[in-house]
């Protein structure tokens, strides 16, 4: 355990320790949501299929159709190839110094230690500290799917959110470019599909001067806010992962792959003590 950074406070893999608090909390939340959905369904004459209606238990007690997209990342399947980093860059066309997805390697104290890589998108926290500190409400958590987004036209570029994010998920766009994306190169004319806005990367106009972050590739959602793995409309990092370590899905759907993994395996989240409730879990 000494080889782990302080962020990894977990039972060693395979010891079969007691379930994590967060996981229990999650299941309780899911079951609570399900119960309310069921009650509503029965009251309404049973017209709603509880299993397919992704119901969430909102604070008001009302049933909403909100999805809660998240990831479960299996560190035992990660080989540290960084294909996710490249795929993310290809998909979002992020410039130099802007990284929506990062692979961090845990420093091993001896060569015999098992290597540990940590691929890290934005955690789309339930209680995102970055959203709270934004002076102009330019960054917010979407009602429909819980993804934390940035309104590039609203953002003033103060970078307070970067200081507030405990996970280093936010990057300021300084206007730097890779050599192949500089003016005159063909690559420079390809806009980023982010948010479906197709912006060019040019000095003086957004997103240069804005803070940027991972959006779970939400521009790949259809008009109903759904992804489709078979059609290739899936977050680029998860789609490309060579070891199939990155699992993506809706935590509000109990049958989704991510919900099942949470039920079956021991999962942790980073810096639980801050109460941010990340929607990205790690299997160790």
């Amino acid at each position: 355990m000494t080889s782990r950074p302080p962020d990894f406070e977990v039972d060693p893999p395979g010891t079969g320790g007691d379930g994590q608090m967060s996981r229990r909390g999650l299941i309780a939340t899911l079951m609570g949501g399900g119960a309310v959905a069921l009650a509503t369904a029965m009251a309404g004459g049973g017209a709603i299929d509880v299993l397919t209606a992704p119901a969430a238990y909102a604070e008001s007690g009302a049933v909403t159709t909100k999805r809660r997209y998240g990831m479960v990342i299996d560190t035992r399947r990660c080989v540290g190839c960084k294909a996710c980093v490249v795929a993310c860059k290809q998909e979002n066309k992020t410039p130099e110094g802007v990284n929506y997805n990062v692979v961090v390697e845990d420093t091993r104290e001896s060569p015999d230690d098992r290597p540990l890589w940590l691929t890290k998108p934005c955690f789309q926290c339930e209680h995102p500290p970055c959203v709270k500190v934004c002076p102009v409400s330019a960054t917010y958590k979407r009602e429909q799917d819980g993804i934390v987004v940035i309104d590039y036209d609203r953002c003033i570029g103060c970078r307070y959110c970067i200081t507030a994010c405990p996970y280093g998920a936010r990057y300021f766009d300084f206007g730097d470019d890779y050599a192949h994306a500089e003016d005159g190169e063909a690559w420079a004319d390809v806009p980023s599909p982010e948010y479906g806005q197709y912006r060019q990367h040019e000095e003086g106009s957004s997103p240069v001067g804005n803070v940027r972050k991972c959006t779970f590739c939400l521009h790949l959602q259809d008009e109903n806010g759904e992804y489709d793995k078979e059609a290739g409309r899936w977050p680029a990092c998860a789609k490309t992962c060579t070891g199939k370590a990155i699992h993506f899905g809706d935590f509000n759907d109990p049958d989704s792959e991510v919900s099942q993994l949470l039920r079956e395996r021991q999962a942790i989240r980073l810096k639980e003590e801050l109460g941010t409730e990340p929607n990205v879990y790690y299997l160790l």
Partner: protein
Amino acid sequence: MNIQMMKRGFWALGAVFVLIGSIGWYDRLLNGHENANYGSLIPWGLWVAVYIFFIGLSAGSFLISTLVYVFGMKKFEPVGRLALFTALVTLGCALLSIWADLGFMFRFWHVYAYPNFQSPMAWMIWLYTTYFLLLAVETWYVLRRDMVVARDDSGWKAPVYRVLTFGTHKTSEESAQRDRKVVKVLAAIGIPVAIMFHGGVGTLFGVVAARPAWNSGLFPILFLLSALVSGGALLTLVSAIFQDGINRYGDTIVALGQLVVAMLMLDVLFQISEILITSYGSVPGHMAALKLMISGPYWWVFWVWQILIGTLIPLVILLAPTRRNPRWVAGAAGLIVVGFIGVRLNIVIPSLSVEEIKGLDDAIASVRVSTDYFPSLMEWLVTMFIVGVGMLLFGLGEKLLPREPEEAVTESPPPDQGVLSGVGASGGDDHVQA
């Protein structure tokens, strides 16, 4: 070196700073943040440190002005106007600095149009806007009568005063009485506003749970204390230099020095408390920033700049018998002002250069993702411009500010006598306004 030469030198230095510094602004406006050295791990750099430095000077110097305009302390009467003027100029410098730091400088109005009052930054901006308006109106009322009198003078100043008086003509004693009342009310409102807004700057840092070194309840209080220390020190320095304060009201300078040293000791006490508690706990995340500050690559900013220049030497000067000599006091005040730039840098940068997730720096090969930061030439130039603008405004103030009525200033003993006569001996009570 005579005073005339010093003044010319001061103007020249200010002008040179503005001229050279404007190259930095040209670069900043043309290329945005491309030539800045901060990145995404250390997203705030020199400009934010300079901003909290200036904003502290402003709040501190304003709070000292209320000693005159709310609490009627005659001892500080001669520096009342200068205190308000200092608060205005340093606030301007602070706002210039933080304006340059924005990704989109011309979207600053978004904070007024779309405020998020969950954000301490939104609160801070709304509060300093209130503070700015209040300060401007109060300063105007303080100067109004003298400007009306001076508008009929000959020379280049008269037309300036004619514009600045906005058409008021009253010079009667009743009008002056009314002005004093307005000033008292405004200054009284200003006290909670200044405390909230500068405490708010501390809160802005204090609430960030992701940065353990900031996340302390002491932060807003520390900000207020250091505002009083640095603002008081700057006021001591400028009142000694401008309007010939050293000779005209040496005992006021000495008294200011005592006020500053009391605040400085309290500030040191708070800092020691913060450092002791952090080190005792030795929680790695909390210790990381502290270790960087005291033994990192920029250890000298703490030990030499903040502790030696900004704290120890001034403490000795202001506690030893030299405390009764306005020249020494002014010198110590100058050291404190310079030292507090180091204090501000140490607040902003070490806390940010601790990776939030271990290994980020190594994971991405980009200068923007680095835990090392030293301001770029462009950043220095932009700051140089702002300092130059501040100096020129002070110079202009020296020329334009109507002097305190001579009656308000008693003959102060020459400095060498002052050492013997002590603080109260020269008789602050003699400062009776006619």
